[in-house]
């Protein structure tokens, strides 16, 4: 077991011990406090974001939890508050993606057991829960990138540049995924009938 001694240490020397707290504007030096602040400010929103990506609330909660733990571990290497949030967001999107990959297996089984949900007729008035299901289903049908771009743009209200950074793609690609995704959803919008913004 001599190789044990050669293990890389997981946590680097904490930055605060070197007196560089000022170099990390807005970031608590303590990872516990920092992650807790992120949790309080963003937990609900990020779980909902993940639900848009993976559909299932339980999975979404696991994903955001995992992402927070990852941020905790990386805390001493983050340089500012915005970076911490950006890293957290990115972790949620990436983990949602890998959850979906594994879902390939899960989904196949569930589909065999349940069969697909019947789609409502185009002229059927769709309200409340049914509409929510329909929108979530429609998002799941989109190619992964389009779904991610739409969720980040319309749910988190991120700018093109922020989306590009989160997904590691160009701004041009963000634009094209957004317009293709929106175009795919348009028939569903049309099928929803009355403008939902006027509903309570």
């Amino acid at each position, binding site marked *: 077991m*001599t*190789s044990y001694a*050669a*293990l*890389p240490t*997981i*946590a680097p020397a904490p930055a605060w011990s070197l007196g560089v707290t000022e170099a990390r504007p807005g970031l608590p030096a303590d990872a516990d406090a920092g*992650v*807790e602040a992120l*949790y*309080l400010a963003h*937990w*609900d929103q990020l*779980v*909902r*974001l993940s*639900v*848009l990506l993976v559909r*299932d*609330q*339980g*999975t*979404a*909660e*696991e*994903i*955001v*939890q*995992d992402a927070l*733990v990852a941020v*905790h*571990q990386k805390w001493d290497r983050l340089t500012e508050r915005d970076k911490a949030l950006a890293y957290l967001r990115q972790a949620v999107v990436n*983990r949602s993606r*890998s*959850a979906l*990959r*594994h*879902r*390939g*297996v*899960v*989904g*196949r*089984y*569930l589909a065999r057991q349940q069969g697909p949900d019947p789609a409502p007729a185009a002229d059927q008035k769709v309200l409340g829960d049914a509409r*929510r299901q329909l*929108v*979530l289903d429609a998002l799941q049908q989109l*190619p*992964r*990138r389009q779904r991610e771009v*739409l*969720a980040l743009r*319309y*749910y988190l209200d991120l700018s093109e540049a922020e989306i590009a950074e989160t997904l590691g793609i160009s701004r041009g690609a963000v634009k094209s995924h957004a317009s293709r995704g929106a175009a795919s*959803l*348009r028939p569903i*919008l049309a099928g929803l009938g009355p403008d*939902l*913004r006027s509903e309570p």
Partner: protein
Amino acid sequence: MNDSHDDETLRALLRDAVADVDPRDRLADVRRRTRVRRTATGRRWLPVLVGAGAVGATVVAATFVVGGLTDETDDPDQAPVASAPPAPGPSEEPITRAAGVYFVAPTPTGPRLFREFQAVGQTADPAELALLALQRLSLGATDPDYETLWPADAFASVIVEEDRIVVGLGSEEALEAPRSPAAYLGVQQAVYTAEAAIGKALPVSFERDGRPAREVLGLPVGAQVRRDTSFSLLTPVNITDPGEELAVEEDTFVANGTMATYVRDVTWTLRQTDGAVVREGTTTPVDITGPDARATLGAPGWETRPIDVGDLPPGDYVLEASVVDTGQTSDRPEEFTDTRTITVR
């Protein structure tokens, strides 16, 4: 419908779609997990050590390098084996879980264990997850290349104790049936599958009606059966994603999987059903992360770059991951492979 109207409608639509999602408070879980990580840093790699024990210290060290250099491998699923996993409490609602289930398939040097993931049902309880996964051994694999050595209704119960997993067998056939000369692999199917579900390397005690089983699948067993980590038991290359029969609806997909610690290079091909290679490439080492990947038992992972299938005609294709390895008892290099049939739409 003009652009800004579209934007506003989409914004309202997406907000509304998750408006009824009421996330449960999980701050306590986050705190517990970050606390465990901090106090157990030095033990983080124990699962890898356990798994690679038979391979030798130099190879084990190489595994650490793979894990240590990759910045994004903050895998909470590699939680220290020495600390107990969080007990399922009222806050942990059951979710649909995928479990790694081990089957048997031929290789150039004889049958070995291969793992595939199956959706086993909804549970937050490790023992229940283990039982659901073991019961899949009786049902068989999705991948037609994989076989099982377990008869129907073989598994009745699972109890997870501090130092062992007690597996209650449900039929006499599971004890006696001399179903195959490879019964040893069958017993290991159960040990690997149970450990993967629990996420810990614990020996398995087989019981029948509350009493220790002396034979399992016709093979005499001791009070505790450990995971056999010998060189020739587990396939040196295994595909995790895609799953068998995956329908690829996007322009690209990424394949990943696990490999033996002594494997250096995993290559892949995508073939038409007539055998013609349409894509091929190499892979890079990764940690496989994600909430459904807990069952991977800390084996080193590999991953392809995105494989572009956008301009391929729709139809079935066979993805093959392969490694070339020279066994311990032979000088002749042999090719080991794992395959998945996928459908490009």
